[in-house]
């Protein structure tokens, strides 16, 4: 029997290859959603349920809609590039090769002697049960042990949205200008 991981990996690679080749951006957006769903499956098999959850919700859900929203403002077909640079392919291959080379130094997956499992993790695992009494260790690490980091992340999300809303106008309603393509900047600057 073929392990499910191999099947998922094969599908992941196939999806990535098709995304790279396809010219229709609508198909690419849909394939990105499938790619995210497959990665969510991979995370689930690695027992990283929270990461898998996030990947499925953000990657396959929201970001697909946002890419489609962006596509509706532009063209659906990728511009065919006239020149095929060999240097670009070389850079991609070299980066990929270096990344694979880097993984050779990593401890094997699930190795209990790996450094990550022997630094602060035992304290977190014990503390989450005894001091915090929160069964989901991910939540106790994110929200309590690493609450400064999470505060920073929330602020980053806030700042990113601030920039996007200032650039895009925050979806403020603009009706009653039928027909005229408005390329003027947003009138309401208060967002």
């Amino acid at each position: 029997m073929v392990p499910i991981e191999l099947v998922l990996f094969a599908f992941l690679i196939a999806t990535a290859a098709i995304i790279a080749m396809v010219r229709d951006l609508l198909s690419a957006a849909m394939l990105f959603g499938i790619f995210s769903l497959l990665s969510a499956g991979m995370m689930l098999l690695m027992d990283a349920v929270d990461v898998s959850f996030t990947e499925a919700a953000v990657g396959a859900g929201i970001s697909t809609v946002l890419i489609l929203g962006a596509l509706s403002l532009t063209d659906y077909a990728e511009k065919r590039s006239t020149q095929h640079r060999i240097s670009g392919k070389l850079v991609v291959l070299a980066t990929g090769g270096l990344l694979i080379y880097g993984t050779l130094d990593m401890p094997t997956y699930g190795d209990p002697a790996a450094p990550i499992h022997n630094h602060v993790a035992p304290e977190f695992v014990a503390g989450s049960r005894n001091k915090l009494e929160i069964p989901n260790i991910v939540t106790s690490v994110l929200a309590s042990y690493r609450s400064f980091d999470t505060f920073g992340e929330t602020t980053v999300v806030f700042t990113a949205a601030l920039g996007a809303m200032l650039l895009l106008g925050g979806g403020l309603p603009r009706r009653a200008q039928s027909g005229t393509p408005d390329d003027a900047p947003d009138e309401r600057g208060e967002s």
Partner: protein
Amino acid sequence: MPRRSIHEVLILRVVSKGIFPFVLLFALYVQFHGDFGPGGGFQAGVIFAAGWVLYGLVFGLTELQKALPPRWVEIGTALGVLLYGGIGVWSMFAHGAFLDYNVLDHHSTVHGQHRGVFWVELGVGITVASVMIGIFYGFAGRRRVR
């Protein structure tokens, strides 16, 4: 066959109207059950936003903004961060360090931790949901520029 707008497809309207409350309910479950099961503020915020985005896709941006005005979304974006930081300030007023949840309950540090995690996750959830809906408003509210 004439091309119909997505807003006119009856099956989509009926089905999405049926799904919509359950998506929001599931988001609330993920939000408030994050201590015990997978999930937390971030995932809950995204699912919550996805529910509203579904509503907006099927019924149109105007209908969505009638139900959820852009002004509220803007306020929510900041409110979540303020809530998170406010918990930190609260713990400082309770003679602890910034974001030290142990002092949030007089009787037990465990309850203090639970209280802190609950409100902090709620802050994350509010900000993430508002941000996602806000960015969707940003894209959907624009017209094609040539």
